């Protein structure tokens, strides 16, 4: 923690940053996003297993710093979002200072104690507990126990289902959707100025929270994130209807890996998956 605060202070004192996006605790000791505008503010910075938010979302939401760059405290997984935003022209690498944090997993349910059982599933497969890309690196890696991957079983079960069974599964899930768009708002890669669902001429996605409209919304969102989602799972965490959105994103992520050996947000200079092509792309499904 001291390391993090020291570096942050240094960044303010050397006038390199206009503000730093990090985590702080509220009066109930709950960890939440916090923007520091001064060296004094940084005293409040914390980082622990409850630092679950992907702060990269603020990079496209907050105004540019009046002077200096934007500092951001980020876990390895969140840094993938930052790289993705750079790959997608949303920010410039030179405009951010990434304070990478060695991460010892984060909680799944934020209102419950951190434990092996209450660890986010994404942490199980994390390859960037020590971030792969950063300007500064703080924190220490500790041994952690990894959670059980409950979703994997669900994915497998889904894969073995008939089309009708899959449809029924998702119908029951999407029926719950209230179209609050929290999934979109917390997503660092949902930076469109006008979401397709808010477009009314024509209305590709019914704005009503009918199951049909919910199907369209969740499918299109998953499609728009295909080959782009970096798997921070903020959407699923934010969903008040508790729809297992990560399954959709994970499926698309698996397609990206299996078909193209591509992981978005791992290399600033890598050509994006969508937007490029290979003449030898698979086409065994095309008559």
């Amino acid at each position, binding site marked *: 923690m001291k390391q993090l605060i020291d570096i942050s202070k240094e960044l303010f004192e050397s006038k390199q940053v206009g503000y730093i996006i990090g985590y702080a605790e509220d009066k109930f000791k709950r960890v939440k996003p916090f923007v520091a505008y001064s060296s004094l503010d940084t005293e409040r910075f914390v980082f622990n297993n409850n630092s679950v938010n992907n702060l990269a979302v603020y990079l496209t939401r907050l105004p540019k710093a009046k002077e200096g760059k934007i500092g951001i405290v980020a876990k390895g997984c969140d840094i993938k979002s930052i790289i993705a935003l750079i790959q997608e022209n949303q920010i410039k690498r030179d405009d951010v200072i990434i304070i990478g944090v060695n991460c010892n997993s984060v909680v799944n349910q934020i209102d419950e104690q951190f434990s092996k059982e209450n660890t986010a599933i994404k942490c199980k497969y994390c390859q960037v507990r020590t971030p792969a890309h950063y300007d500064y690196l703080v924190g220490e890696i500790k041994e952690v126990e990894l959670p059980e991957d409950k979703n994997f079983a669900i994915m497998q079960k889904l894969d073995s289902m008939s089309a009708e069974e899959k449809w029924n599964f998702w119908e029951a899930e999407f029926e719950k959707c209230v179209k609050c768009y929290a999934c979109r708002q917390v997503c660092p890669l949902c930076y469109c100025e006008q979401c397709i669902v808010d*477009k009314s001429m024509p209305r590709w996605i019914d704005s009503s929270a009918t199951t049909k409209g919910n199907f369209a919304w969740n499918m299109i969102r998953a499609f728009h994130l295909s080959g782009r989602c970096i798997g921070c799972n903020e959407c699923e965490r934010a969903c008040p209807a508790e729809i297992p959105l990560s399954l959709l994103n994970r499926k698309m992520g698996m397609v990206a890996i299996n078909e193209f050996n591509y992981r978005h947000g791992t290399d600033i200079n890598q050509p994006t998956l969508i937007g490029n092509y290979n003449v030898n792309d698979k086409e065994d499904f095309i008559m």
Partner: protein
Amino acid sequence: MRIGVFICHCGENIGRTVDCPSVASACANFSGVVHAEDYKYMCSDPGQNLIKQAIKEKNLDAVVVGSCSPHMHEKTFRKACSDAGINPFLVEMANLREHCSWIHDDVPSATRKAIDLVRMLVEKVKFNEPLIPIRVPVTKRALVIGGGISGIQASLDIANAGYEVVLVEKEPSIGGHMSQLSETFPTLDCSQCILTPRMVEVYQHPRIKLVSYSEVENVEGFIGNFSVTIRKKARSVKDELCTGCGLCVQKCPIKKVALSDFDEGLATRPAMYVPFPQAVPNIPVIDRSVCTYFKTGKCQLCKKVCGREAIDFEQQDQLIKEDVGAIIVATGYKLYTIDKKPDESMIKGYGEYGYGKFKDVVDGLQFERIASASGPTSGEMLRPSDKTTPKKIVFIQCVGSRDESKGFSYCSKICCMYTAKHAMLYKHKVHDGEAYVFYMDIRAGGKNYDEFVRRAIEEDGVKYIRGRVSKIYEENGKLIVKGEDTLAGVRVEIDADMVVLATAMIAQNDSVKLAQTLSVSYDKYGFFNESHPKLKPVETSTGGIFLAGACNAPRDIPDSVSMASAAAAKALVLFGSDVLEREPVVAKVNEATCAGCFYCQKVCAYNAIEQKEIKDRQGNVIKVVAYVNSGLCQGCGTCNATCPSKSVELLGFKDDQIYAQINSFAEVF
């Protein structure tokens, strides 16, 4: 909106299976439709007048015609409606003939489908917007790529018509394959004798800028407005100083260091060379891979003897930019090298013919050099291995052509003729020699062509054997040619002294790369595609780029020359007007909602998407958005489908237009 629907019977063509009057009356009930009628021939003058009249009388502002394919008559109806005061892009066509009446038998269901098809377009047209053709200025200057006979012809035609031409040739000299030939069929006149004057004409033409030993590196822009980057390879000789005296070539001590490309590897050349004596420009090149100076830092003899101080060892490749309005591609062909395997196959060409293994098995161009008076044998008929006169010679046609399993399925078109010529030239030089030709068919279509082949057979006694050769092997200094005579039904074995293979004409090695640079399409063999095989044989899929000669398909000299003139004429048509009108089906960005992810830019095949800064009143950049250069946009709409927020839309095929079609595809109730 006031929409008129016009249903055409196309005589009986549509009317037979689609109940046109009931289609029209069903359409009359569609919302927005104020007029619907059917007529025998909508595309006829009276039919068109019917439409024009209805537009005026019913004050229509959009029209849907249910008739044939839009590929057939879209232009006709757009024109008619435009004459009557409707913007042509407010006209849509439902394809009731090719997509309905001609493919169905059952009248009720075909009629139902016809109604659906019209309704979908009625719904679409409600969202059509008037579009205005795009006007772009024309740079009246042409680029010709390739200085063979096609490129030479095209350049001269355009230059003589009064416009400037930049002619780019990758070799040190223009002339192409034609300059390698001995004599030409069917007249047997000397190839160089007819070609070199034209080469000189090019060189001396005030409006032709010859850029030899150079390659096109990059092409930007669009019809009428191309910006071309040309890589001028380092010759190591300053072309502005060189007088072409040839002293350096004579003095170059590294004499027989490399095989001459011009002589197809049958002769050698020095490190400092001009490819052939009549080369244009007559400026030598240093082959840096073999030159002593470049290898050891010593020698510089050429530099010492050059009075003009034209030798420049430090010379680098140079990039030059040229702005042109039209591009003619005339990059020609190369011969199928049969000892190299085509990539996709395990088959290594014609291994059984022993090309590359037996010295006296040669290909057509090598034989041209042997027969040429300026060639390595000075025109004497001597075989490469021991420089003796072959007494028995075998010519094999269709090596690689018309042979899908080992080569290419197409016919190389010129081999029948040049083989007859070769056999004839041989017989003229070796009177007591025997010449055999193995052929599959004789394809000698052309003025005086068949007569030419008959002459070879009847007057010069060339023995034609209809059949394929299965194997050639060496035995006791002879080449044993095993084949079959399918007419006589017997196996044939000839102990020849020399064998000439008429190998296929194939696309140049880097044709695909050039096609991609130019954004023109190409076939699976690497030949550039014409825009339409019959009606647009010299155009390409990209406006302002035309094709000439064998880069499009195997082609002989007269065909190449006429195609070159045709391409030149197309360029001249373009230069005939100061501005160009283009279909306004282009993409357009909604800058308010564009988030600047530039996925559209990534998918655009035409580099038509640019980045544009949006500034506030103080001049601060608020955001960077996509901007479509409508001159470059070809209207594919890939950007539109890629854009997650639909901030870029393709005019004419906007989202709401397609939505309307999807929304109305099914009959309801």
